[in-house]
């Protein structure tokens, strides 16, 4: 039953699993190094772009008033969104005791942390005076003035900050027993290093007792947090007066989208990674099938949300809303508008077919489309809505520049840099949780426990 619970074709002993995972940490392959250098390169591009922005001002980026937010905020929402799938899988599915999460959750959780780290950069990059961003924090200062907690941006500060902290705790937490396992297999300085990280984990009965409770509570805390964070992000828009932003549907719409985009990214990351790290047998069709099903579900949520947006715009009879949505489909940004609908609402429908769900190539292609689609969703929501607000005289279009793309590339570099380093340094597959799924040998045959 254990095998069934874990999924087909995995008949490995505890010892084998340990060695499999520890093997992923052995000397890196050429491909891996190439990828890492690529990531660092991209990151440098972003860094240089940012320095220029810091020197001259945001003018270099493609802002055309009234479009005061554009690619940077798009990236922010995009990356925050990515984060959500990780926590969904590691925390929410943990509460649901869903068996297939065990193999993939470590990777997705790492993705979460790094995605949120990336997202966290953008509010700073996009503000006009980056060097005073800390004024958004409620710290006692000589001016005796506090921030404005009525501003959705303040909620953001707290939401994203909390999310980053707690999900990092959660990641480190689950990591400890595995790091201990690695420690006991490693030698020399690496052993010393892992020993530090493992904080002296031995796996004694007491440790496991507190560990499993704490893990449960953290998961329970993270579950509402996941839902809240992207709701708060969506309120950045929904709390405003801008036509097509000012909608009650936004919170669920954004959370759905976030998880959808996250799942897309998970697949994009895992499909190559499992090959590079040679853990195909640990992360296999069974998991991707389930991932794909989840993607399909959220994809349908997207489909529904899009149609609702248009329906509400039409039904409200509000001329501003109607104009905005008409222009979203047929205005200057029609291409972006349709990209988002095709990539998100339509592509995901392919996942109804088991053949496509279980064929990794097709999954990979679809996941790429999802990433693109979700980036454009945010782009459309932000840019095309801002480009035509209440006063026609002020309407204008955006033309992005090198500064926008530079920062976008940089953010991908920054994200992959961390993810790749993590994948090489720490067990990307949760050893102890997989072991938990595979029963230990018994003296008296039969007498199955549980």
């Amino acid at each position, binding site marked *: 039953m254990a095998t069934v619970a874990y999924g087909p074709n995995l008949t490995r002993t505890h010892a084998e699993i340990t060695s499999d995972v520890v093997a992923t940490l052995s000397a890196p392959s050429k491909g891996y190094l190439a990828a890492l250098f690529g990531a660092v390169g991209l990151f440098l591009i972003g860094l240089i772009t940012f320095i220029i922005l810091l020197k001259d001002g945001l003018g270099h980026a493609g802002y055309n008033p009234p479009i005061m937010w554009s690619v940077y905020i798009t990236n922010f929402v995009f990356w925050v969104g990515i984060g959500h799938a990780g926590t969904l899988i590691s925390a929410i599915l943990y509460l649901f005791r869903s068996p297939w999460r065990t193999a993939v959750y470590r990777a997705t959780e790492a993705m979460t942390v790094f995605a949120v780290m990336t997202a966290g950069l953008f509010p700073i990059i996009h503000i006009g005076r980056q060097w005073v961003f800390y004024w958004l924090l409620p710290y006692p200062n000589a001016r005796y003035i506090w921030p404005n907690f009525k501003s959705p941006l303040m909620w953001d500060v707290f939401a994203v900050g909390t999310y980053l902290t707690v999900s990092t705790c959660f990641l480190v937490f689950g990591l400890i027993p595995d790091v201990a396992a690695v420690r*006991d297999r490693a030698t020399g300085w690496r052993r010393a290093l892992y020993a530090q990280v493992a904080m*002296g984990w031995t796996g*004694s009965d007491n440790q496991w007792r507190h560990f499993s409770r704490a893990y449960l509570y953290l998961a329970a805390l993270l579950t509402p947090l996941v839902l809240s964070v992207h709701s708060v992000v969506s309120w950045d828009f929904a709390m405003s007066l801008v036509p097509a932003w000012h909608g009650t549907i936004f919170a669920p719409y954004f959370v759905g989208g976030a998880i959808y985009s996250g799942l897309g990214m998970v697949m994009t990351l895992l499909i190559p990674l499992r090959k590079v790290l040679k853990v195909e047998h640990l992360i296999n069709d069974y998991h991707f099938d389930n991932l794909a099903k989840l993607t399909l579900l959220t994809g349908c949520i997207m489909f529904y949300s899009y149609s609702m947006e248009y329906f509400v715009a039409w039904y409200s009879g509000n001329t501003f809303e109607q104009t905005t949505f008409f222009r979203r489909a047929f205005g200057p940004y029609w291409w972006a508008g349709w990209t988002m609908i095709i990539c998100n609402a339509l592509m995901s429908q392919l996942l109804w077919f088991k053949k496509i769900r279980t064929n990794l190539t097709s999954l990979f292609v679809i996941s790429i489309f999802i990433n693109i689609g979700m980036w454009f969703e945010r782009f459309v929501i932000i840019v095309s809505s801002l480009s035509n607000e209440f006063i026609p005289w002020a309407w204008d279009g955006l033309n992005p520049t090198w500064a926008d793309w530079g920062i976008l590339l940089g953010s991908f570099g920054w994200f992959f840099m961390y993810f790749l380093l993590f994948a090489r340094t720490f067990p990307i597959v949760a050893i102890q949780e997989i072991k938990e799924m595979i029963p230990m040998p018994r003296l008296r045959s039969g007498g199955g426990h549980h």
Partner: protein
Amino acid sequence: MGLPLPRRREVPGVLASFEHIDAACDAIRALRKEGRRNLTVYTSHPSHEVEAAVGHTWSPIRLFTLIGGLTGCTAGFAMTLWMSRDWPLVVGGKSVNTVVPYVAIAFELTVLIAGLLTFFGMALLTFPRAVRKVGFDPRFTDDRIGIFVPAQAGETDRLGAFFRDAGAVEVRNA
């Protein structure tokens, strides 16, 4: 029973390692019948079977989480309300103190502090300050179950014999 705080002094005792979980559990039960309470049982993964055998009660972690949550919630509301009264500024024609928007802040702080305290409590309760060389074997984090019994020089032989009968694949005095 006291907290399993890190033991600096070396404790003499017997360390047995098992391959079979049922054997290990039987051994634990037997020892506890003898009235030995301060066993240490090592497993590479959380196991209900072992826990049942060791007969653990509840973990105080939940208190940390609860207190953290309450603190966070209070702090969240107190901070926002007090700060907006401290220098009243009207925005958007709204009243200076409006609870609704502050719920977001309070909620986030609740989760934040609860989460941190849980982690902190976990660390406090679980981790000894240094890895104990004695009474531990690297294979316990791999595929073996280990049982350590503190014992005086006199009783080590008897315990060793007991473990071998119980099906331990390896027994040594530590």
